């Protein structure tokens, strides 16, 4: 199994980090369901969901190898670009303090409170636990499937690196969840989303450009330049947003006083 590491390396990193964020969010719900409703139904629900997602990746991945890459590069590149810019957009606003950061501990507590109010057979076989765990893993996992398939569609032989990144994230999050038995609220989710947003935006820009006939200087190495470019723009944007919000607050305080 030989990879072109100029694309495979960033693909593994992007798939790992993006999947990690999604799995952390799914883990929070699974832990809340498991602690309140019991583990049998919860683990079975989560396991069936992971199995279904793996099946979808295998199915779409094998179909992907039969489609000429140039034909889908513009479409996939545009989707990855929109996906990446959306994450980066939110991460910038969170970094500037304009929208609230994702708080896994608070979500965990809210979920537990909601579950305690639910009726049903909490015990050996709990249908509610199965459905809730299945639903949360499927919903968060849908994003992981998209990320893996989209990253795999960017170049020949990228399905394995993308899948490896996502599976490694699943293993790490699963293991950490097993060890700490609490939501992973100390993982800097916003920083992860910031980095993933930068990586996916860079990939999306590169592939869309290739599909539109852009000749990238340095070929695949241009991805590194795009990553540096987006990182610079995003950091400047956070500073500008903070200043703007700060200036607004000062003005309103001045008017009030």
């Amino acid at each position, binding site marked *: 199994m030989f990879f072109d590491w100029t694309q495979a390396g960033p693909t593994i990193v992007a798939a790992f980090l993006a999947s990690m964020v999604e799995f952390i969010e799914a883990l929070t719900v699974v832990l809340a369901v498991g602690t309140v409703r019991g583990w049998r139904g919860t683990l079975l629900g989560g396991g069936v969901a992971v199995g279904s997602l793996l099946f979808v990746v295998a199915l779409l991945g094998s179909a992907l190898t039969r489609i000429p890459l140039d034909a889908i590069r513009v479409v996939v590149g545009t989707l990855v*670009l929109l*996906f990446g810019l959306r994450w980066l957009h939110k991460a910038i606003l969170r970094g500037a303090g304009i929208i609230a950061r994702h708080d896994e501990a608070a979500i965990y507590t809210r979920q537990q409170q909601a579950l305690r109010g639910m009726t049903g057979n909490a015990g050996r076989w709990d249908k509610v636990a199965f459905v809730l765990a299945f639903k949360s893993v499927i919903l968060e996992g849908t994003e992981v499937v998209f990320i893996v398939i989209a990253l795999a569609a960017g170049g020949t032989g990228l399905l394995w690196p993308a899948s490896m990144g996502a599976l490694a994230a699943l293993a790490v999050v699963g293991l950490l969840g097993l060890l700490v038995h609490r939501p992973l609220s100390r993982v800097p989710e916003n920083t992860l989303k910031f980095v993933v947003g930068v990586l996916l935006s860079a990939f999306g820009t*590169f592939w869309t450009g290739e599909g539109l*006939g852009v000749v990238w200087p340095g070929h695949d190495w241009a991805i590194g330049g795009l990553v540096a470019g987006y990182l610079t723009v995003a950091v400047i*944007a956070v500073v500008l947003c903070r200043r703007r919000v700060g200036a607004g607050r000062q003005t309103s305080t001045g008017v009030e006083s």
Partner: protein
Amino acid sequence: MIGLKTIVRKAFNLFVDDVLMTMAVLLWLIMVWLLLPWIFVPATWWGVIEFLGLAVILTVSVLHHARPR
């Protein structure tokens, strides 16, 4: 269980958060595709132009959300 509506909404939300930004990105890509071949700029600069346009769209969009209210 999970309704089709939820899945469709989730899929849409994967790509679109700020509709204006999404529209601007798509318009910019169409412009790059249609106009750049007609402008006398070396092909190696097209990528830089594509990136700069996207960077401006992203910055303007976040600054719009950072408006003092």
